[in-house]
């Protein structure tokens, strides 16, 4: 087992984290009311941030891949039973806590006391999974399709999917603005 990453990865990780944390705080997603407000559809900040990040990110990452500037992607395995069940459990926890792991760390730094208890719970959750893993890892073999993208499984160019998500995101933003305009007439 090695203990510590390369100096470049330490500095790079730290810098990327500082920018990420700064952006999450400026986006106000380090707030309980913004996260829970999204699930109650009174505040659509989370969807606006996530869909913008996905659209902008996908254009750049697939662009760099096409130009040969990067060699490969980092797609996580489609172990669909675990992805779906884990996602459902995650959603129950995130909605009850009012933070996700990254924004929870940001909220603790901001001063939120209850987020710190959530953070402690997260450590116990990671420990619970770690020690349950030998008994439950069989679920990772159910509906395991490997590290596949939507382009791989549909047999079309990734750019079709990039365009699809850009159009869907644009439509979601337009719908959100229509609803927000109705709620608060100028």
């Amino acid at each position, binding site marked *: *087992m090695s203990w510590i990453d390369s100096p470049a*990865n330490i500095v*790079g*990780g*730290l810098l*990327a*984290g500082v920018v*990420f*944390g700064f*952006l999450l*705080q*400026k*986006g106000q997603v380090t707030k309980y009311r913004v996260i829970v407000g999204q*699930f*109650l559809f009174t*505040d659509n900040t989370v969807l*606006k*941030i*996530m869909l*913008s*990040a*996905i*659209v*902008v*990110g996908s254009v*750049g990452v697939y662009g760099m891949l096409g130009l040969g500037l990067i060699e490969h992607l980092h797609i*996580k395995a489609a172990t669909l039973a*675990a*992805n779906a*069940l*884990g*996602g*459902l*459990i*995650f*959603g*129950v*926890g995130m*909605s009850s806590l009012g933070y*996700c*792991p*990254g*924004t929870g*760390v*940001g909220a603790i*730094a*901001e*001063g*939120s*006391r*209850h987020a710190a*208890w959530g953070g402690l719970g997260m*450590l*116990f*959750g*990671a420990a619970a*999974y770690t020690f349950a893993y*030998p008994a*439950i890892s069989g679920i990772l073999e159910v509906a395991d399709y490997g*590290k596949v993208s939507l382009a791989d499984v549909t047999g079309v160019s990734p750019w079709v999917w990039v365009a699809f998500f850009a159009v869907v995101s644009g439509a979601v933003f337009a719908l959100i603005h229509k609803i927000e305009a109705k709620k608060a007439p100028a």
Partner: protein
Amino acid sequence: MAESTNVLTHKRWSPYAVGAGIGVLSWITFLTMDKALGTSSSFVHAVGLATWFGAPGVVSGEGANAYLAKEISAKTPMFDWQVFLVIGVAIGAFVSSRLSGDAVKECVPGLWSWRFGPNKAVRYVGAFVAGLVMMFGARLAGGCTSGHGISGGLQLAVSSWVFFLCTFAAGVVTAFALFGIKGRAHVLD
């Protein structure tokens, strides 16, 4: 008084600008470090570190726990890129909140208090259990909002879009189960 022209001191940036910024940050981590943003693996590293102090043989070697061996000894250093990223997130959020005067010592959020009362212990226990459940789900799914939701979403990963849709659906159902339609009027309490 006119708002300061220094955007670093503003409390809130446009969510579209923030999202685009995170997208561009992803380009940079892919291009310069061959990495995708993620958060929740670092909590496994924290578990690994704590375990190592008590029982190093459980972290690596013959009789190691299969998950710790897979996630740490066979994959990345104990203090890897992402652990430093998470430390950076705390620093970045701290600096941003202090620059804008937006640091809040929140103990019990208004909405929670409206529904479950202002008792701090009740909220702290609720937050602890919620955090535990959430992280268990993240590890089962193989990532969280950043690793799956943003990084996986932008790579068009099948796993990540399944996770995203399941998380969102469960989050909406849970929020309405906890607070109901009436809760919508108390989000900003």
